[in-house]
């Protein structure tokens, strides 16, 4: 393929754009105290935060899949009054400032919340300050990513494959599991990965709704934030860990963003 010559203005702007992203990452890599990296990474608080982050984000992703796929299916396949409004609402957390999301969760599921007060008085269950609360906060902000990705996949798949399956005698559940799901596999995978990455990085809603306590609700992003005040170098190292995970996500999804080779 002949290389097209890049107009100078485009080259300059593109370079500035690239620098905008590369420099902060470079700064993180250069300023990190690599000598103390092992110590920072193996400190008990770090391990605790990492473990909690993994458990919470994977749980959030699992819930996201279990609840999000049916929602996506309904949005893609079923016409009903108010569908567009409902779809907009489930996408709202993507644009909502996370702290606002946290406050909304408190008002719904906090001890005096719409549902939370009932949970408290009937079952004695409180969600704030618990790991379950962390999972809820993360699910709230991350599930929309899965929903829109899977919905797009369902809309773009050739539905005639489902018809073909039906002519072969497959009932609806079998059509869904043996034909639809495999065909939207890439979308489902991408949606789940995005959901997981977003859940892993969530800060505002988590600290507002679930609070901050090591081992229970102190996820990696919260730990990094607090370390910034006490042990800056350790916070750089932990930031790098989160950065590495984000990079892995991008690599896993590169074919989606850049198109298959």
């Amino acid at each position, binding site marked *: 393929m002949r290389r097209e010559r890049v107009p100078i203005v485009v080259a300059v702007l593109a370079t500035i754009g690239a620098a905008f992203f590369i420099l902060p990452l470079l700064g993180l890599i250069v300023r990190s105290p690599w000598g103390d990296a092992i110590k920072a990474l193996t400190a008990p608080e770090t391990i605790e935060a990492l473990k909690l982050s993994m458990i919470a984000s994977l749980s959030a992703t699992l819930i996201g899949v279990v609840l999000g796929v049916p929602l996506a299916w309904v949005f893609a396949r079923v016409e009903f009054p108010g569908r567009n409004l409902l779809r907009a609402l489930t996408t709202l957390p993507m644009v909502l400032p996370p702290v606002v999301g946290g406050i909304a969760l*408190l008002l719904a599921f*906090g*001890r*005096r919340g719409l549902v939370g007060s009932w949970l408290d008085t009937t079952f004695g269950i*409180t969600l*704030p*300050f618990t790991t379950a609360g962390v999972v809820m906060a993360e699910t709230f902000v991350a599930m929309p990513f899965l929903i829109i990705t899977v919905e797009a996949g369902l809309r773009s798949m050739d539905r005639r494959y489902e018809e073909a399956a039906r002519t072969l005698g497959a009932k609806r559940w079998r059509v869904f599991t043996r034909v639809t799901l495999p065909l939207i596999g890439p979308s489902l995978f991408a949606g789940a990965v995005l959901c997981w990455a977003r859940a892993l990085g969530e800060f505002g809603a988590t*600290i507002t709704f*679930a*609070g*901050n*306590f*090591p081992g*229970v*609700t*102190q996820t990696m992003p919260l730990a990094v*934030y*607090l370390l*910034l*005040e*006490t042990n*800056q170098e350790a916070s750089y190292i932990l930031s790098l860990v989160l950065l590495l995970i984000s990079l892995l996500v991008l690599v896993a999804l590169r074919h989606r963003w850049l198109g298959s080779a």
Partner: protein
Amino acid sequence: MGRMRNRVLLVCVATALVTACGGSAAPTATTLSGTAFIFAAASLTDSFKALGTAFQTAHPGTALQFNFAGSPTLVTQIEQGASADVFASADITNMDKMKTDGFTAGTSQVFAHNKLTIVVAAGNPRGITGLADLAKPGVIYITAAKTVPAGKYALQILANSGVKVTPRSLETDVKSVVGKIQLGEADAGIVYTTDVIAAGSKVQGVPIPDSVNVIATYPIVTVKGARNAELADAFIADVLSADGQAKLKSFGFLPAS
């Protein structure tokens, strides 16, 4: 008290000398202008805002921008390059850190003290009567993180009184603690008496006996490299003045000396 007044006098004379010797371009107190960024501990939110409004009215053409957060957060921000002109901390430790790291100009001065109290939701639904009740089963106790002065003080108070209780959350500043008590998410916390006053009827305080209580010390300083050092110094002088001290007292702060 006397020492405090001498210090104030010293600052006033020094300021006058500085402005007088500053040369033809040096502005006097009546020609203050521009903007100054005041980074102050969260517990100073309401009082400093009031001080700021009064100051700006008295000195038209000046603008004071406030940034309230937990003291350690402010230290981090300033040390990472945020442009602050004034730093007011809720404890000596954070101020010392600023000094050691070379971010202060001149000497810091104590401008207020504060006592701590237990805060509960209005009506005291859980019936908290003292520190020991914080450890009651079913009571959700939260506090600020231990690097935040309020959090550190709370730990000291609990140690002093021998009460062992694990907080359910470590907030990043004292106002968040008050906020969650207000919302009803947590039952009790240890915050400044000024915070309880500021929150009005939404919360109420349960006093901590003086024998175990801690007196918080609030120092203030001009930040090194402040863009508007004159305005910074003027504001600090205002805080330390009789007028400023009276305002702080009206918010529940204890006097500087």
